């Protein structure tokens, strides 16, 4: 039972199962003390660490199709470990790549709000606190002490519920274990998903469901070998740790940019 290799926590989201119900979004907000405002209809000002996009195939009635795509932070690994688009650009090391878990962190008290990381992220996974977070009188009672509320003027994003990892580690340590079991560390969205569309685990561990579902190819920066699996913007070389499954070709194609007449099967990553 030797597993000294570093963890690479990642997610597989089955878009065939995802119903677009939004539970993941709200579970995340509740878990992570995400603030809210009276008007949240401008999605460019609305903090949603997990955001569910609605994709359409663009065909006219009755050949129209839609698909929902939940988008957490991709926790990009980049072309070499830690070379995420955002981590490399942060001038103050306020966002960091955790080598032990592969999780991209955000240190709110370090961030001074230059927003370069937001400019660098092609997934729009990063959100800025344009306002002071305000909870209606009394509602701050439900705030969790495990995640500190963010102050105005800093960037925040999905952390793969890193605090849950820490709590799980502590708990395991009390039991005299150093290794976490697969179900001991699960993100809030994974747990809440009523459709069981989200699977979370260690992409480096062949026993974990995420590994079996995505079948990452270590020779090609974890590119999925499952023909139904894809990653968002695979060709940019961001090397995300969130995989999507879809049986529909148009959905898989919507995951990346392709030239006209270019086949989806050919996936040149420019950095290779």
């Amino acid at each position, binding site marked *: 039972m030797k597993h000294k290799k570093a963890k690479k926590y990642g997610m597989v989201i089955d878009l065939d199962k995802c119903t677009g*119900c939004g539970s993941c979004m709200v579970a995340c907000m509740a878990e992570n003390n995400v603030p809210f405002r*009276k008007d949240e209809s401008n999605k460019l000002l609305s903090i949603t660490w997990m955001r569910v996009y609605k994709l359409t195939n663009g065909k006219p009635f*009755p050949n129209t199709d839609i698909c929902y795509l939940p988008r957490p932070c991709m926790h990009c690994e980049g072309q070499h470990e830690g070379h995420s688009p955002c981590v490399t650009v942060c001038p103050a090391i306020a966002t960091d790549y955790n080598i032990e878990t592969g999780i991209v962190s955000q240190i709110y008290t370090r961030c001074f709000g230059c927003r370069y990381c937001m400019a660098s992220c092609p997934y729009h996974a990063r959100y800025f606190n344009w306002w002071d977070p305000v909870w209606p009188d009394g509602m701050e009672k439900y705030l969790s002490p495990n995640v500190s509320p963010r*102050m105005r003027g800093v960037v925040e994003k999905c952390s793969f519920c890193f605090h849950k990892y820490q709590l799980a580690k502590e708990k395991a340590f009390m039991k005299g274990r150093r290794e976490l079991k697969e179900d001991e560390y699960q993100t809030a969205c994974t747990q809440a998903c*009523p459709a069981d569309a989200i699977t979370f685990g260690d992409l480096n561990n062949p026993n974990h469901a995420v590994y079996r579902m995505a079948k990452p190819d270590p020779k090609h920066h974890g590119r999925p070998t499952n023909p139904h699996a894809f990653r968002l913007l695979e060709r940019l070389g961001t090397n995300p740790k969130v995989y999507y499954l879809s049986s529909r070709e148009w959905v898989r194609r919507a995951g990346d940019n392709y030239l006209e007449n270019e086949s989806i099967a050919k996936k040149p990553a420019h950095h290779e």
Partner: protein
Amino acid sequence: MKIDRRSFLSFLIGGGAGTALSPLPWKLMDDSSIWTQMWPWTPVPEDGEASYVNSACTLCPGGCGITVRKIDDRAVKIEGMKGHPVNNGGLCILGLSGLQLLYGPTRVKTPLKRVGKRGQGSWEKISWKDAISEVAKILSDLRSTGQSHTVGCISDSDRGTVPRLFERFLTVYGSPNLMRTSSIIDSYELTLHLMQGVQASPGFDFENADFILSFGSGIIDGWGSPVRMFRANSAWRNTGGKIIQIEPRLSNTAAKSDKWIPANPGTEAALALGIAHVIIKESLYDAEFVDNYSAGFEDWKRFVLDKYGPDSVATITGIDNTTIIALARSFARASKPLAICGRGQGTTPGSLDECTTVHALNALVGNINKQGGIFAVAEPDYINWPEVEMDATAAIGMQKDRLDGAGSKKYPFSRYLLNRLPQAINSGEKYPLKALFVGDANPLYTMSDSKAVKKAFDKVPFVVSFSSYMNETAQNADLILPNHAYLERYEDIPTPPGMPKPVISLTRPVVEPQLNTKHTGDIIILLAKAMGGNIADAFAWNSYDACLKETLGNKWQVMIKKGFWSYPDFFVQTHEESFDTISGKFEFVSKETGSLKQFKPVNIEGDKTNYPLLLMPYDSIRLANGVIGNPPFVMKSVDDTVLKGNNVFIEINPKTAGEQGLREGQLAMLSTPVGKAKVKVHLFDGIMPGLVALPRGLGHTAFDDYLAGKGINFNELIGPVEDPVSGLDTAWGIRVKLAKV
């Protein structure tokens, strides 16, 4: 000492340089940054001991088990309960936001008595003692003048101890006017009554079915018990189960289905008949069941074969005949086919014809009371209270006709017809309603033709709301007797709609009551005691909690431990004992209702010339449209193609929009014969041309600033259309016109 200019300058420069080189500026810089990291106006949640409490969610009838994470005495997170038979760990968006209701600004903090005009929002605080004696006085006065039957009560459910306490109270008090908010369950109960002769709710064994033929049911849009449906849907993805979705708009369910068949709106029953035609004609039906356990099949067969050939059905529904034939074959040949109805979340009962026809499809393939099929689930009889002793007044009152006409000569089979109440009050044809209790319901928001409903409410001199939240009905009440929020109270949650096996869950206090509220059950008991006599005698319990504990008996301990009670001894009835009709068999044509009627599309309101388009509501799991409105988190999840600022979007096909000269994002005036509203236009390819779709769940006037004033309540634009047999609301839409603003 003489200070000359030079020494002064030197002092300044030297001082400046000295300060700059001293630690002071660095210290200040450091301090200021530390200050920004702990601004006093950014809350710091207090840490404490973590614990978990199992309970059940009451925010919709879904009946999910929840596990609430606590830090000391604060509830900080709601999660789905693992191992619960309904949701096994998953939870819907509304359930996950429950703490925003518990601690939110929409709570009614104390009993309130109206001081200004109705709906004006001026209240005065009133003590519980005064509030209860005031209600008792009004009720006593009415009773003593022989008007006990003019007291009504509206509740979303008639199951479980609290609705049953209301019922018991009205019975012993002397009023037949307990009304339940209507839904597809009403149509199904009626269908089961007429075709199978039973008093039961439908239970669908989705987990074992492998071919779902859905006539517009939003399987993943909140129909039935939502989380259970999500789980079933995912299970079909694993097992290869198929869903065929019939509806004119590409809903989430349609998008996730294996085949989406857009039928002309309102023609679903015709399609069901067309499918039956093919099945019968090709002898694909379950002869064993039909021959042995059904009655009236030959009549029905003749009727179906005569009139509903694929060609004529194709004309009615707009679906081509080959699709109909193929659909019928695959349905009949599937090993566990199941046909269901109830549009969207099933909040309107719909046409009885439609429900019976869809149910007949299930009978054709013989999946009644069978694994993977549809069960008639009788309510578990755990509530065994002693019979009430009615005095003469009560007996006279109970003899009166119900105000809503349910059980009358016109609608003998229906139990509740809340949709008919506004008209009954407004027309004054029977008798007036003098006092109205509104339990766990929000009729002023959820009932169609809001204007008429409001008018009717205004005619009721005394309205009491038991709502925990300041909803539309509470806002327009005379007295609010706020219930504890669901995370502060004990209550039994009866079997959720559509469950094939009965299960009772237990809601229990996660936190101490945060406000000056009282359990509705306790209020009823206190009220009964205040009334004295037979009424008090019927409520011998000291408190609601005592009543519940006594009622549940030996189940109590198990429920406290597990959070729910499932019936291990629940057995599936054989076909011999399933049917309690006149014939003792499944009746394709009910002997009680008599003749077969030709399929007639529901006559929806509005004429074609003035209102060229059709308006339909659509349901989204991200828009709570029942007794609870969207909490802030759920509002946050609403797409910007549904709501932008305070404007709601209608969905319209680009082709139709082009004909109307409308572009994406444009403002338009939507008018129906019932009302009008300003909306924004969203072009959506997935909607049938000629149709306009508007989401349910917006347009609240009550609740908080996070919800109120955003969008339009669909019920302001539509009125009820009575079903000729059931009297229930069958309206699936209304004619509409759109004009540029």
